[in-house]
């Protein structure tokens, strides 16, 4: 069980952490003098955080998810459309058991 006081503090801790982390990067970078190297660092951060998010999830993902993501990347390469890539990935995940049973 959880009393109202503990719940309130817990949500305050979560909300404060969420807001602080959203703010921290922007505030931090306001102090760093801009330059070509910093700019490349930030460009690298942007693509890396997304790539790492996917890779990290794939470590424990099932084969169906891996297949769906491969299909999505293939469609992205062919159509250059994120929407088509997502739709194809979704269809691949949904039909995977069917395709494998053929």
């Amino acid at each position, binding site marked *: 069980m959880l009393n109202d006081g503990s719940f309130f503090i817990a949500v305050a*801790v979560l909300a404060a952490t969420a807001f602080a982390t959203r703010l921290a*990067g922007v505030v931090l970078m306001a102090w760093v003098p801009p330059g070509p190297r910093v*700019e490349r660092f930030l460009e690298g*951060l942007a693509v*890396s955080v997304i790539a790492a998010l996917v890779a990290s999830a794939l470590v424990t993902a099932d084969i169906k998810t891996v297949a769906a993501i491969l299909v*999505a990347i293939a469609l992205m390469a062919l159509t250059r459309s*994120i929407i088509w890539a997502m739709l194809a*990935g*979704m269809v691949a995940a949904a039909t995977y058991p069917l395709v494998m049973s053929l």
Partner: protein
Amino acid sequence: MSRLLPICMFVVPFGIAFGIAAVEQGIGPYQATAMSAFVFTATAQFASLEFLHDPVAFASLGLVALALSGRHIIMGAALSKWLNHLPLGKRLATIMFLSDANFADTQTLLQRGETDLGPLMGGGVMLWITWVSSTALGAFGGDLLGDTDAYGFGVVMLCFFAATAFGMVRRATTMALPAAAAIAVSVATYPVLPTGWNIILAAVIGGLVSAFANVE
């Protein structure tokens, strides 16, 4: 931003699942909905449920929340070039609605040379409304909805992120090496680092690779 409409659809089952899980944990439906409204970080909220029983281990709760929302620090830094031009009020309003999906969505636009962060905030508000209302749906009506695991939220979201990263690398091939480094680091450190920290470390290393390896 139109790309975020299908993403929002797939946030719904996830929000419903959180509402149901929170109520099962003994949290009232109003409280669960308020939690989604104030925290707006799905992974941190799911992880926090394990800590929400008396006595609450507040320090551990804070650490887990930090690990799982720490990637927002990275995203904020990556957006700082555009964000820090905005007036303070608008900067705060935009950053409050930062999340993985609208960050990834905006990258495609920024790489094309757009400078307007309106889609970041618009997409964030859309995701926030979807997240809060679907939590409420799960918290108040969970009994009627049954099993939501089958909707496959995770897969579609991952496809969206994978396609976005792939598109970014193709538009700027100098990003291939940083992305590869980040993938390698996140996978290699996954077993040894607590969840979340491996992504943060991988992103920083990818950034460093980009800063020091791409000498034109």
